[in-house]
């Protein structure tokens, strides 16, 4: 992991508490999962596995999550999470997203 990414994930972990992390894991697995698959291996939306995302800049992924992609079914989630929370999700996606429980 690059030093930069590590620093970012530390910062994200600091601002997203354990209880909220648990909620976000559920949100991603269940609600993002309705389009990306519960295993995140893809559905109507593309796979969100480390393999699929590793070439893509984290900033762009975060912007997609917060702002959506107009003209595609990817909706904006900015009303339901902070920037730090979106950062946290992107970091976890790049590492391999945690399972529920």
């Amino acid at each position: 992991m690059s030093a930069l990414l590590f620093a970012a994930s530390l910062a994200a972990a600091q601002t997203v508490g354990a209880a909220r992390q648990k909620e976000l894991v559920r949100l991603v697995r269940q609600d993002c999962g309705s389009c990306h698959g519960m295993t995140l291996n893809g559905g109507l939306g593309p796979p969100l596995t480390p393999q699929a995302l590793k070439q893509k800049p984290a900033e762009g992924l975060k912007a997609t999550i917060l702002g959506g992609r107009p003209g595609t079914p990817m909706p904006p989630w900015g009303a339901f999470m902070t920037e730090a929370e979106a950062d946290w999700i992107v970091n976890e996606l790049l590492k391999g997203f945690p399972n529920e429980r």
Partner: protein
Amino acid sequence: MSARSAALAAITLTALAGCVQTELRGTGDLGVIIERAAGRVQIVDTTRETKLGAVEGLGDLSHASVVFSRDGRYAYVFGRDGGLTKVDLLRMRIDVRVVQSGNSIGGAISQDGRLIAAANYTPGGVRVFDAETLELLADIPAAYGDGSQRAKVVGLEDSAGNQFAFSLFEAGQIWVADLSEPRVPKLTKFKDVGRQPYDALVTPDGRYYLAGLFGEDGVAMLDLWHPERGVKRVLAGYGRGEQPLPVYKMPHLEGWAMAGSLAFLPAVGRHEVLVVDTATWREAGRIKVAGQPVFVMARPDGRQVWVNFAFPENEKVQVIDVETQTIVKTLVPGKAVLHMEFTPRGEAVWISARDDSRVLVYDTATLELRSLLLVDNPSGIFFTSRAFRMGL
């Protein structure tokens, strides 16, 4: 209770009663509930409103759907991971299971009950199986453009004459596959039907195939009695040029919410249920609802329409009175309401609340809660009465 302990219990009961045979029963009041995360289905009895037993080992069941054999004995479960499992409802065990693709969305059973078709995302296409053995009979790649691209297949529906109709999401096409010779499918392709068809349904008579469009306001309609007339656009521009609202879950066009000559459909990107007059295929009204509708389902007698919603309004269910086209009740069954299923004649409706791990049974006359079943992260609920209806 696992299938094995249920079977044991049944044997013990009959032994106590002094019988030598296990009790005979029909399947007309049976159904299955998908336990999304556990890869398991619960088999339920809609008369006694209870679980009878569970069948495990069905793989990734997020977004799973089910069709039934015409004798009502077997449930065919389509899993997200491409698994297709034939479950014996009476013995409560897996009869046959195949993993047929990488990523599947649902399927259909042919008019004569002999063929099962599965709609796949990756690799995009349709595969057709022998309903008895699940042997692969035909593979139809959803190739488009120069032929090297494959589209995700959505809205796979059965219709008369062992035909299946389906839509290609990225390609904006509708295909009809005639499987009267199962190993030699005959395809008719309709191009430029509209942007991003996301799901479809057929009317109960099997005549009209309607594909909802995500990329534009409107519905693509094919008259399967007259395919030569081509695909027509209905409800074009229902959004009246307004900016669509974000859709946090794709709506489903499963079933056909039809009451008299009126049909009820979820709008996309509007918090509305659209009312269509099926005599003219024109808009006959719209009803403001609590959020982005996901399922819009008519009680079998067509007097009420029940609606559930996408995140973040997914704790609610609204009941529309068809005669007055008004909402008569907003229920809050629980967290993450995913699906609703009416009993065969509609006196009750079963509703799954995923995050509460509950299935709630409501009386549709009083709109009161009748029973509650504990089910682990329930999603789809499917009753055997679907076996006798086209498009389900």
